[in-house]
C-alpha cells in the first residue's frame, strides 16, 4: 500500500475508494474492517444543528501515526487508513473513518476497534456543538477511558 496512513481534512471522504486503495495490489488481504463516525442529530438529550471540529495540526497526525504503529505491533494487520475531518460539519455528515486490512477478519475487527478506542481519548480533536440553545464544547466521556483500558492501556482523558 502506498499513500498516507493518516489525513486530517475539511473535505468529505469515500470509504469504498479508500478501502479499495488500501488493499490494492496486496493479494494477502482477506479482510477489510472499517468504521465511520457521523454527526448525530441529538446528544445527551438536546438537538444538534451542526458541529465545529478543531484539532492540533501536526500533533494530531503524529499521534494517530503512533496509534497505527501500536496496532501493527499488537495485531497481524496489513494496512490501516485513518481520515478525520475538521471544520464545520452538518447533521448526518461523516466525521471520520478507520479502515484496516488483514488476512482474516478477527485481526481486522480487533485492530479497527483498538484504533477507535485509542483515537477517542488520545488524539487531539475537540468538538463544539451548535444547538438551538447555543454553542457548547462536547464533554469527554469516562466510558471512553474505560474502552481504552480494556486493551491494557491506562491513559486517562477525563
Amino acid at each position: 500500500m502506498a499513500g498516507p496512513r493518516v489525513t486530517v481534512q475539511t473535505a468529505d471522504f469515500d470509504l469504498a475508494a479508500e478501502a479499495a486503495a488500501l488493499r490494492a495490489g496486496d493479494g494477502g488481504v482477506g479482510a477489510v474492517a472499517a468504521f465511520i463516525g457521523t454527526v448525530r442529530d441529538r446528544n445527551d438529550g438536546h438537538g444538534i444543528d451542526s458541529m465545529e471540529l478543531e484539532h492540533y495540526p501536526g500533533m494530531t497526525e503524529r499521534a494517530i501515526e503512533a496509534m497505527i504503529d501500536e496496532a501493527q505491533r499488537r495485531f497481524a494487520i496489513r494496512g490501516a487508513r485513518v481520515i478525520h475531518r475538521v471544520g464545520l460539519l452538518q447533521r448526518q455528515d461523516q466525521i471520520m473513518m478507520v479502515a484496516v486490512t488483514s488476512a482474516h477478519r478477527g485481526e481486522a475487527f480487533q485492530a479497527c476497534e483498538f484504533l477507535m478506542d485509542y483515537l477517542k481519548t488520545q488524539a487531539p480533536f475537540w468538538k463544539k456543538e451548535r444547538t438551538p440553545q447555543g454553542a457548547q464544547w462536547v464533554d469527554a466521556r469516562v466510558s471512553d477511558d474505560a474502552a481504552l483500558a480494556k486493551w491494557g492501556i491506562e491513559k486517562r482523558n477525563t
Partner: protein
Amino acid sequence: MKVRVRFFASIREALGAGEGIDVDAGATVGAVRDALIARGGAHAAVLARGRALRCALDQVLCEETATVADGSELAFFPPVTGG
C-alpha cells in the same frame, strides 16, 4: 529560557492561541501551569487545579512532571473529543 505555549478549544477561546513566555531552566510543565495561573483572571479560571486539563510537550501528550527545554512547544487543552 523561552517556551512557546499553545492553547486549544475552550482554553484557546478564553486565553487566545498562545504566546512565548520566559521560564526558569529546568521548569516542569506543572510549574509553567502554575506561573500562568498566578497571573489571575481568565488564566487562573481556565487553568485552575482540579479542572480536567491535558498537556503536550513538543506535540506528544505528557504529564505535568515533564521538564521543558529552551524552545519547547507546550500545549494545554481540555480532554479530547474526536472520533
